[in-house]
């Protein structure tokens, strides 16, 4: 069917066909992603509701299923207020700066053996570079609002994101050391080899087990990196105002979308780097994209779960955890894995 469609489009568009085909693939990634973002907000409210013995949204549509669409329409209808004295251009560009990297990073995510938009050699580096641009949305929003609260909030969350990026980067260095590649597809394939995978217990061969300390560091760092509870210093819905106090309507909604799109992105990265991507956990079931989605959903649930479970960290505790705990742990484990790989007990040949 795909071949038939390809031929049909080739006939219609002729020389610009590759462009049209790529655009089509981009739409095929972005559209489900945005739908996922919308329903992640809904799922979050439901899950936290259940955990707190409430019902959660249930008024709009059957079981409240239309709720995210109603929220979206509400935000679209609202006015975008631009504060007086704000730097208008930057004020309007900042939400896009926050949102665009979360979408651009999907270009190199492999969904299975062959399904990837751009199969580039340095895809892990590309992801790190693109996601590091997202912090601009936050500082620019804080600065351009011409408000002290927004500015301080922006500084706070930007400092937090930069700190945890270091620990995250070091954890990724260990992953690429054992996979011997920067290509995300190859990293997944490297996890399908090993003693356990040969005996049909694939899930014990994935990176999470031999690199357990890095997995824990990465899992906590991504929560801090996306400014989610218990590290939600950026804005704590009812208590702390953050970098987007002055934003309203759709401009605010774009920040909101960016946060959830980033959550889905980092969950996908966790699934690809540590949980074996599309690989099946046991030998008798086939590898498929289905497993990738299951793993992403599991990590996303972890995000919601800890939000309902833990109280908020104090700011100096966040900084201490990032700089004085995670970075030394990463540096030591980096050396340990390096020695391990050089020793006769190397399991990543």
């Amino acid at each position, binding site marked *: 069917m795909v071949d038939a469609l390809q031929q049909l489009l080739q006939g219609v568009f002729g020389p610009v066909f590759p462009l049209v085909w790529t655009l089509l693939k981009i739409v095929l990634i972005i559209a489900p992603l945005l739908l996922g973002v919308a329903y992640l907000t809904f799922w979050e409210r439901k899950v936290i509701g259940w955990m707190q013995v409430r019902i959660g949204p249930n008024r709009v549509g059957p079981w409240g299923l239309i709720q995210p669409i109603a929220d979206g329409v509400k935000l679209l209808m609202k006015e975008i207020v631009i504060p007086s004295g704000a*730097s208008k251009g*930057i004020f309007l560009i900042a939400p896009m700066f926050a949102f665009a990297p979360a979408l651009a990073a999907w270009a190199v995510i492999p969904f299975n053996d062959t399904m990837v938009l751009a199969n*580039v*050699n*340095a895809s892990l*580096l*590309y992801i*790190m*570079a*693109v996601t*590091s*641009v997202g*912090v*601009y949305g936050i*500082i*620019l929003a804080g*600065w351009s609002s011409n408000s002290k609260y927004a*500015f301080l909030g922006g*500084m706070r969350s*930007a*400092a937090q994101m*930069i700190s945890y*990026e270091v620990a995250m980067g070091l954890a990724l260095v260990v992953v690429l050391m054992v996979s011997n590649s*920067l290509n995300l597809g190859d990293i997944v394939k490297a996890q399908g080899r090993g003693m356990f995978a040969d005996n049909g217990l694939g899930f014990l061969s994935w990176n999470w087990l031999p690199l357990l300390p890095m997995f824990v560091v990465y899992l906590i760092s991504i929560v801090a990196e996306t400014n989610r509870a218990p590290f939600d210093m950026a804005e704590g819905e009812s208590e702390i105002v953050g970098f987007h106090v002055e934003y309203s309507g759709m401009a605010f909604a774009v920040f909101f979308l960016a946060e959830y799109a980033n959550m889905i992105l980092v969950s996908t990265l966790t699934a690809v780097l540590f949980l074996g991507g599309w690989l099946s956990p046991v030998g008798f079931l086939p590898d498929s994209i289905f497993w990738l989605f299951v793993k992403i959903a599991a990590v996303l649930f972890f995000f919601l779960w800890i939000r309902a479970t833990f109280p908020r960290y104090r700011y*100096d*505790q966040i900084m*201490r955890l990032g700089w004085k705990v995670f970075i030394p742990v990463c540096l030591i484990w980096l050396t340990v894995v390096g020695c391990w790989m050089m020793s006769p007990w190397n399991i990543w040949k």
Partner: protein
Amino acid sequence: MEFKTFVFYFFAAIMVFAALRVITARNPVQAALFLVLTFVSASGIWMLLQAEFLAIALVLVYVGAVMVLFLFVVMMLDINLDRVREGFWSYLPLGAIVALLMVAEMGLVLGGNYFDLFENKVPQAAADATNVMSVARLMYTDYVYPVELASVILLVGIVAAVVLTMRDRRKTKAVDPATQVIVKAKDRMRVLQMPSEKQG
């Protein structure tokens, strides 16, 4: 015109424009943002040269980390632009000499191949290896001592920065996490029994 040439001129034009705006923008934050745009365009041009590792590293290090810290500082400065511009003409001759010297030095380095200045040529990368692999192999074989030296210098820089900020540590009210964790309810709160004053 070939498409690749078009892409090159596209990036080059943006880069030159952004670089000019860095020194002409009135607002220092806008100047810093134009510097970011310059870096991104430069990375695009490097990508055309198939130096993808350098291109991505430029975005990762300079755009993602260095310029963010730069913006932090610039945003918190309270700059009076008129005061800054006051001495423009008196500093111009000195500035022009420094600028000319820098242009000459950059020309010599960048045109080194053309003027035949380099004693040993930069080794060519193996055709089959990826960009990252060839850079890594050169860094840890042929250039291992310069790399180690550079990293030691950077480490000294880090330690120096930490020491400079830690000089008057006495003023900060940092708490020791160990003592916080070990605390029990008994240490902070005493429950007293009191007979009630009022009868009935």
